[in-house]
């Protein structure tokens, strides 16, 4: 599906933290590419993705869940340059959408890299639920963003939508941004969102070191525990291990 080939600017709410220079390098054509998925009524779909290379990348997904369908997206965003994953999810009656996302990484030769998730979850019909858990781990002036929009239609009663974001900054100068945006037109709904950003738990790190664990291992264990939240809902243990390894591999190469 192709759309008008114009480049976004930072004045566009969904692009406010984006790396506009990288998008210019990528070109408008790349942004016009959407990947569409339909999840038929009563079926379920899981996608586990490791996204990010040395060049800028934008992935845009449009996912349509029919009645009582289930979809889970579990994504590690570890780009070496600007990397953005967008999910636009449309939920019919009784459908459930689960998203676990991790942005992780530092700088490249040009400086801090931006990695982001942008989701729009549309509760179009009653009794659908969605749960989004995003963890951002950054250093070296990099930033991780989660722009999460939840739209609840006027008649989508008994909607249950949750969003949870936590950022872990391993060095000063890194940043994490969370922009929850709720547009709720129904009155009998549950919509929860939370966001926190902090540094590594030094008390936990000292406790681990006092038991003989080297600082780099202590950091890896703490980061693993931190990002593990994003994949709790992923039942496939081999896929969970693959995603964790993909994320922790970035940390190991960082030499912090």
């Amino acid at each position, binding site marked *: 599906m192709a759309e008008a080939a114009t480049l976004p600017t930072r004045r566009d709410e969904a692009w406010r933290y984006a790396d506009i220079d990288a998008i210019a390098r990528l070109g408008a054509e790349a942004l016009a590419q959407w990947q569409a998925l339909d999840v038929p009524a009563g079926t379920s779909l899981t996608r586990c993705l490791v996204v990010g290379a040395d060049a800028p990348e934008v992935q845009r997904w449009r996912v349509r869940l029919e009645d009582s369908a289930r979809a889970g997206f579990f994504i590690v965003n570890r780009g070496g340059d600007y990397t953005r994953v967008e999910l636009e999810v449309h939920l019919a009656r009784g459908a459930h959408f689960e998203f676990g996302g991790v942005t992780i990484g530092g700088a490249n030769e040009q400086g801090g890299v931006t990695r982001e998730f942008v989701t729009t979850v549309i509760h179009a019909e009653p009794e659908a639920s969605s749960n989004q858990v995003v963890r951002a781990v950054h250093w070296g002036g990099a930033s991780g963003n989660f722009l999460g929009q939840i739209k609840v239609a006027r008649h989508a009663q008994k909607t249950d939508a949750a969003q949870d974001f936590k950022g872990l900054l391993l060095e000063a100068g890194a940043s994490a941004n969370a922009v929850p945006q709720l547009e709720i037109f129904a009155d009998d709904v549950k919509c929860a969102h939370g966001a926190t950003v902090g540094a590594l*738990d030094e008390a936990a790190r*000292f406790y*681990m070191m006092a*038991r*003989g664990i080297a600082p780099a291992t202590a950091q890896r264990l*703490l980061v693993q*525990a*931190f990002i593990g939240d994003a994949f709790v809902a992923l039942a496939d243990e081999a896929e969970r291990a693959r995603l964790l390894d993909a994320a922790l591999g970035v940390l190991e190469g960082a030499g912090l």
Partner: protein
Amino acid sequence: MLEITNLHVSVADKPILKGLTLSVPAGEVHAVMGPNGAGKSTLAHVLGGKPGYEVTAGSVTFRGEDLLALEPHERAARGLFLGFQYPVEIPGVSNVQFLREALNAQRKARGEEPLSGGEFLKLAREKAALLKMDMEMLKRQVNVGFSGGEKKRAEMVQMGILDPAFAVLDETDSGLDIDALRIVGAGINAIMRSADKAVLLITHYQRLLDVVAPDKVSVLADGRIVETGGPELALRLEAEGYDAVLA
């Protein structure tokens, strides 16, 4: 085994330890008692290598090596164990994973082979039983949701698994009821009472010393050891209070 000589330590530029000298040979359980604010926890933390404690003078030698030159994890690998007054919760990391990583890191640093998963679980089960702790608790996240008493018992299970040569136990008795105190005391005896091991037992109260009979007792006040004696010193402190004994 542990020689502390004229140790001066400041925290945020405030002197806490002011010329502390203490020697603990192998085979000895040495209790350190003292009023609030005397510097007991500072002593434990500086021996463990906690960041934020600045040694401004003096030395600490552990098994002939300059302890203060070592990182915390290196101290642990040399056989030093620090029992925390407030054990730290680590969400998302299980006790089993944490302790196996810790033990194998120590073994690697000493040039020993790592324990396999099965060997480790056997060891953990044995030490948990010694402290009357359910093995299921060790599969849970480190200290998360543990009561104060459970955290202290878990500390002793950790000590049993890591099998250190020297334990610095910082108010391990605080937060324990009478039964738990007996279990923890018996655990300390079982794990650490040995001719080639030693313990520095930091406590406020006599009650733990009823179970873990110390060989020596020192009184820490205003950053220095002001008196050292046998177990009778602890009884005198308990009966008369710090002020009377220190007067």
